[in-house]
């Protein structure tokens, strides 16, 4: 796969705006093409410090971080509006950027004229815009308002028009800052579909947001920026969880006492101290020392704040016997042993079943099943019973988690254990439903027939 965006050791400094710099700044801008060149370090602010990442073509890349973490600066550099102070940025492909709400629109003039101006800024000729005009307006859903001056538009309408123009200019790389979250649910669905089509064509999306929901929903990979540095890069689930932990911690909700008690008890348990989710090699049964990641850059397999802890998971058949080699369609029970280190009122138990190639086969949690948590204290055994687990033959892995309703993880085990499915019947895919073929007299088969019924 080729790379759409490559960022290497990117630094960006801004100049503190103080009086008396004007002449030196102009000199530096003229001679070095940068504002900060002629200035001392203390006169500058480092907005991005040594950030590196790559985005492959055809993928969606998310960037999260709190206010002032450098997200917008990064986006503006990728869009070519700002020049890096140090480091290299390569963006290969035609770029469209939605940087700020309503930016690029002239408030006094109509939506129609703004579509033309916006399209022209994105590099379309008048004829090309003429051709796409109806699609643009229709997608934005603003047919009735398109002749109105855009100053009368709501923020949602701005976003709809802006996104619609941008996506209709056929960019190869779309840079979006925050703004999508402003659209209503219906528009977000349309955006999502459109973005999926966009990605399926081999195009690339880079999304900047502090809304974790948006990020988790759209991204294949997520970068967490903090104070201008790349703090964590990885799968959306993992980065979002780590971010949630850090946010909770910063807000002083980290239940410090519980954590400290736990850290003494369990060396290298799911510590929340760094928010960076140290790896715990659960599968091998041992608890590896904190911070050691098996396999270098591999993702950690366990993270969470530790208020509640998953102590074990078993698969049990209908006779109550532990079993990891299952017949497709037989009754299976997932037993999860959980210990709450303090009394919790906000909790969700969840299980996810994956193929070894990371396809999510099935996921369920008590929240989705409609249970509203009230209290959890001490040790408990949660049982999830499937009267007939109809999966295709093969290997499966499960994730087990106990977390708060907003996703704040107490303990998240990734790929906690594996089991295999066997079946006497054949088929492809991951799901083996009950099925039956039916034919009329027009179809004839040679004896012996195929297995025509499968239970």
């Amino acid at each position, binding site marked *: 796969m080729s790379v759409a965006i490559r960022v290497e050791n990117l630094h960006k400094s*801004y*100049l503190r705006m103080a009086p008396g710099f*004007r002449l030196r*700044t*102009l000199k530096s*801008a*003229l001679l070095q*093409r*940068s*504002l900060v060149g002629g200035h001392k370090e203390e006169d500058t602010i480092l907005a991005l410090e040594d950030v590196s990442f790559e985005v492959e073509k055809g993928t969606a890349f998310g960037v999260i971080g709190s206010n002032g973490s450098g997200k917008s600066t990064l986006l*503006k550099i990728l*869009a*070519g*509006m*700002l*020049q890096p102070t140090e480091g290299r940025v390569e963006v290969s492909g035609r*770029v469209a*950027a939605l*940087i*700020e709400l309503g*930016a*690029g629109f*002239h408030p*006094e*003039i109509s939506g129609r*004229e703004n579509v*033309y*101006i916006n399209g*022209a*800024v*994105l*590099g*379309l*000729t*008048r004829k090309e815009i003429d051709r796409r005009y109806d699609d643009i307006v229709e997608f934005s859903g603003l047919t009735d308002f398109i002749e109105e001056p855009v100053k009368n538009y709501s923020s949602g309408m701005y976003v709809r028009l802006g996104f619609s123009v941008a996506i209709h200019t056929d960019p190869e790389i779309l840079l979006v800052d925050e703004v999508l979250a402003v659209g209503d649910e219906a528009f977000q669905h349309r955006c999502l579909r459109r973005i999926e089509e966009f990605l399926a064509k081999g195009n690339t999306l880079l999304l900047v947001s502090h809304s974790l929901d948006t990020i988790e929903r759209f991204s294949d990979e997520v970068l967490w920026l903090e104070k201008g540095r790349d703090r964590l890069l990885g799968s959306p689930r993992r980065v979002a969880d780590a971010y949630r932990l850090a946010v909770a911690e910063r807000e002083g909700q980290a239940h410090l006492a519980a954590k400290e008690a736990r850290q003494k008890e369990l060396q290298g348990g799911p510590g929340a101290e760094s928010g960076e989710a140290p790896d715990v090699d659960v599968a091998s049964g041992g608890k590896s020392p904190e911070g050691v990641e098996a396999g270098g850059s591999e993702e950690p397999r366990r993270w969470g704040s530790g208020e509640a802890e998953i102590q074990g998971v078993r698969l049990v058949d209908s006779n109550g016997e532990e079993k990891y080699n299952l017949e497709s369609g037989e009754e299976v029970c997932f037993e999860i042993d959980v210990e709450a280190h303090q009394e919790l009122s906000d909790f969700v138990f969840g299980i996810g079943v994956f193929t070894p190639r990371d396809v999510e086969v099935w996921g369920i949690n008590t929240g989705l099943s409609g249970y509203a948590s009230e209290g959890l204290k001490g040790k408990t055994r949660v049982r999830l019973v499937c009267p007939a687990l109809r999966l295709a033959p093969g290997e499966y892995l499960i994730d087990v988690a106990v977390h708060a309703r907003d996703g704040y993880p107490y303990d998240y085990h990734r790929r906690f254990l594996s089991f295999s499915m066997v079946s006497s019947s054949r088929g492809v895919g991951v799901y083996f439903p009950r099925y039956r073929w039916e034919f009329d007299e027009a179809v004839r088969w040679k004896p012996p027939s195929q297995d025509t019924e499968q239970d």
Partner: protein
Amino acid sequence: MTKVADRLFRFRGLLATLVSRELKARYRGSVLGFFWSLVTPLLLLGVYTFVFSVVFKPRFPGSDPYVLFLMTGLFPWTWVATSLMEGTNSLTANAGLIRKAVFPAEVLPMVSVLSNLVHFLFAIPILVGGLILGRSLGYPVGGWEAILFPAIVALQLPALGGLTLGLSALNVHFKDVKDIVGNLLALLFYLTPIIYPLGFLKGYKPLLWAIEWLNPFTPFARAYQAVLFHGALPGAQIWIQMVSWAAVLWLVGCWLFGRLSDSLVEAV
């Protein structure tokens, strides 16, 4: 340096859209609309005719009727003055656009220059009407040399465009630039042969030399006066001066803008 010109060419569609928007916006909501572009010079012509043929009777040799001589230099000067005033401030005034969206900033000063060019061209029929009237009254004004008018405009455009580009970029760093430009223009008006023919200054040699060689707009004013008013061909010296000013101002303006454009988004 070529980057600025390249981008102006690439975004010519945007340039055209913005110029037409600028023109429409100016008269939006007014009853006469575009006719104001004709009414304003017409009123000016009327007032000046009254003032300079009834109230004052200025006597410059070879500038009769004076009001037509004055208009010939004044209309192109108005293009220069309004373009420089609006254009110098164009980046700062649109800071929101430049800072928040991907926008080709070099387009903005050029929009000022081009929309004011259109206004200038709208005033030309009024001037031509006046010249025809003057000729029918027996004054020796106008002639076939007027066909060279587009050539002079074509040379003034890069001169004015380059100057506006450069000043707009400087104004981002020093907000004083637009005030300096405003005041300099008021002074420069009298240092350009508009209300008097250049020959009038014969007695003041150093001033004459400075106005003739250091003021970029002197050759343009003289050229307009030659082809429109005097019905004469501008001399070779005037052509050379126009071409040189056009080349120098365009190149310097583009160079300055190109140099400063990398840091524009931060500075604006």
